[in-house]
Every structure is written in structure tokens, then in C-alpha cells.
């Protein structure tokens, strides 16, 4: 599994090819790229800065990926998250999952994104016309993550 936290942009083709290289049993690669938007909560966003918790971030992403690999039959996965200052249109996060069959790849990719949104220590600060503001966590993200593990269902 590849886990990376980096300031640089990533290359979707290169990451997907590295993920499946030499594995002719890969039938499916589901991938997700999240982008910085130019509008959030009704305000125009000029730029954003992503802060993270070095050390914990990598551990949290690896734990999320390993959890996915226990839940579904996966061949490999890649999780890359950028940090630092980004402009609208810039890619922020890449998750790609390779498996034999598409159901596992889709489910694991969405699961990883939902958990990353609620468990990995990244914070966004947006620059708007009225100044800088920290993005507030969304209850819809907690709800998305909870779909995979209803309260009280398991330890």
C-alpha cells in the first residue's frame, strides 16, 4: 500500500499504473480525486491552505487503508493527500484501489474517502474576500463514515 502526504501535485496515470503494474489479475481500479473548489458555503474561495499533524497523518491513512483491506478483497491501494497552499481547481487527494472485481474496488475506495474525511488529521483554511476562515467539519461527513460502521454494531 502506498501512503503519501506531500506538497507536490500527483499524477493520476502514474499512480494507477504503479498500483497495477505487473499484476495481470487486476480487473478493476476505482479511483477518486478531490479538488479545491472556488466556492464553499456560499463564499468565493481564492485559495486554501492545508495543515496536518505530521506523523499521525501517515499512521491514520495507513490504518484506514488496512481497515479497507480487511473488509474487502483488494490487490493494492494508494492514498495521497496534499498539504500546503492550493488554488481552486488544484487536486487535493487521490485514493485508488485495485482489485479483481469492481464491487470491492468501488466499496473500498469510497470507504477510504469517507474515513479519511473524518479520521485523518488535516485541516483546511480558506482565503475569501472577507478574510481567512477555517473550514468547519460537516455532519454529512460523519454520517458518510458512520454508514460503514453503525454505532454499536461492532467493537
Amino acid at each position, binding site marked *: 500500500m502506498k501512503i503519501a502526504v506531500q506538497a507536490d501535485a500527483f499524477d493520476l496515470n502514474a499512480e494507477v499504473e504503479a498500483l497495477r503494474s505487473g499484476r495481470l489479475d487486476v480487473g478493476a481500479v476505482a479511483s477518486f480525486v*478531490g479538488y479545491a473548489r472556488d466556492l464553499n458555503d456560499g463564499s468565493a474561495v481564492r485559495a486554501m491552505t*492545508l*495543515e*496536518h*499533524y505530521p*506523523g*499521525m497523518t501517515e*499512521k*491514520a491513512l495507513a490504518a484506514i487503508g488496512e481497515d479497507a483491506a480487511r473488509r474487502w478483497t483488494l490487490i493494492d491501494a494508494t492514498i495521497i*493527500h496534499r498539504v500546503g497552499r492550493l488554488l481552486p481547481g488544484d487536486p*487535493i*487527494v487521490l485514493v485508488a484501489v485495485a482489485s479483481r472485481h469492481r464491487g470491492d474496488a468501488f466499496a473500498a475506495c469510497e470507504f477510504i*474517502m469517507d474515513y*479519511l*474525511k*473524518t*479520521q*485523518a*488529521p*488535516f*485541516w*483546511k*483554511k480558506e482565503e475569501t474576500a472577507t478574510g481567512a476562515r*477555517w*473550514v*468547519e*467539519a*460537516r455532519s454529512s461527513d460523519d454520517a458518510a463514515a458512520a454508514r460503514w460502521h453503525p454505532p454499536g454494531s461492532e467493537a
Partner: protein
Amino acid sequence: MNVRLLYFARLRERLGVGEETLAFDGATVAELLAVLRARGGVWAEELAPGRSFRVAVNQELATPDTPLADAAEVAVFPPVTGG
């Protein structure tokens, strides 16, 4: 014992500190939070029970009853907003 405290994002800015080392005689996250709240002002406000923040101990998400050992790394931060 001593614990190393880290603050991130909005909380780092509001509290005006990114990290500190604190001599601490309690045993759990809840007791450490009580010590921090006792500083009053913005500390009491931001870390009040019911405010939305998270605590990690040695880089794992923690709960109020998570035990603390000497040299623990304790991070306090807002709910995460990456991805």
C-alpha cells in the same frame, strides 16, 4: 511526569501556542483537559465540555478516559476537514 502537548489549526491560532511541555500529575486525558481549562480565558472557553474538539494520544484518537504515561504526546485539535 511530563507530557508534550500539540495544538493544530483553529485551536493553535486561538490558544496562541503550537506546542508545549507540561508537568502533569494526573492519569487521564480528562484530567489533563481539566488542568488546561483551569488556565481560564480562551483555554476554558475553547476546551469547555460540549465544545467540538478532538484529542489524540501518541498519535491515536483518544477519549476522556485514555490513560497518559510519562512523555506522552497529546494533541488537541478541531474536527478534521481534509480530503
